[in-house]
């Protein structure tokens, strides 16, 4: 199981890209942290989610 934004999800084995496709996140408005490090967008296709991973998807909103 992978903990994503506090929720345990059975997405081990999926790449970040594959997981994000199943969500409503807009890829151009997010940053993804995995196990304490930010994953560059160029690595989303190659990043395989593993059992025990902790992930946070930060979704930026407008204003500033």
């Amino acid at each position: 199981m992978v903990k994503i934004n506090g929720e345990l999800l059975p997405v081990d084995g999926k790449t970040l890209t594959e997981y994000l496709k199943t969500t409503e996140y807009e890829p151009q408005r997010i940053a993804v942290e995995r196990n304490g490090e930010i994953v560059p967008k160029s690595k989303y296709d190659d990043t395989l989610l593993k059992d025990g991973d902790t992930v946070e998807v930060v979704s930026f909103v407008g204003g500033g």
Partner: protein
Amino acid sequence: MIPTREEWLEALAARHGERLQKRLSAASVAVCGLGGLGSNIAICLARAGVGRLILIDFDRVDITNLHRQQYKAAQIGMSKSDALKENLLEIAPYLETETHNVKITRDNMRELLLGADIICEAFDKPEEKAMLADGVFEMMPDKSLVSGSGMAGLASANLIKTRKIASNFVLCGDGSSDISDGEGLFSSRVMLCAAHQAHAVIRIIAGENDF
């Protein structure tokens, strides 16, 4: 009479100690976007005694900016980078500034941010916030990024928070109040988020690790 540089530094050191002032003086902080967040962040950091600010914005001061941005009526029409530099030097005459009247892109960001230890993201579009974050983490992961997301509207001030997302990434704001929801931007709440960001920068410079 404008104080001498020594008097100015002594006054700051008397406030928070010589050791911290040495760190602040040696720090170089980039402020990307000089609007509601950026102009307030810059003023805060200049007052606190940060040695050098890299100020980046492509835009000009507009009448609609005045209700939350640190510009004056007489500066309408001026480039934000020039106007803010002027205002900052009136407050902190010995502040070193580097100004860039350009739009930050993936292609130019590395060169623009090379001299910064800490980068403040102060854009208004979520895509640009994400673009800057991605560029910093991929190309300059040794630098710290302090970003702002969610400060629109009149929701409670207590919802504005500072969170450490990764070792080099601090995020301030309420995370959800978006201007696209028709929420206005109020100087008080924008300033709150900007202060959170400036405070995070000062804490990083001071070596504070718990966020």
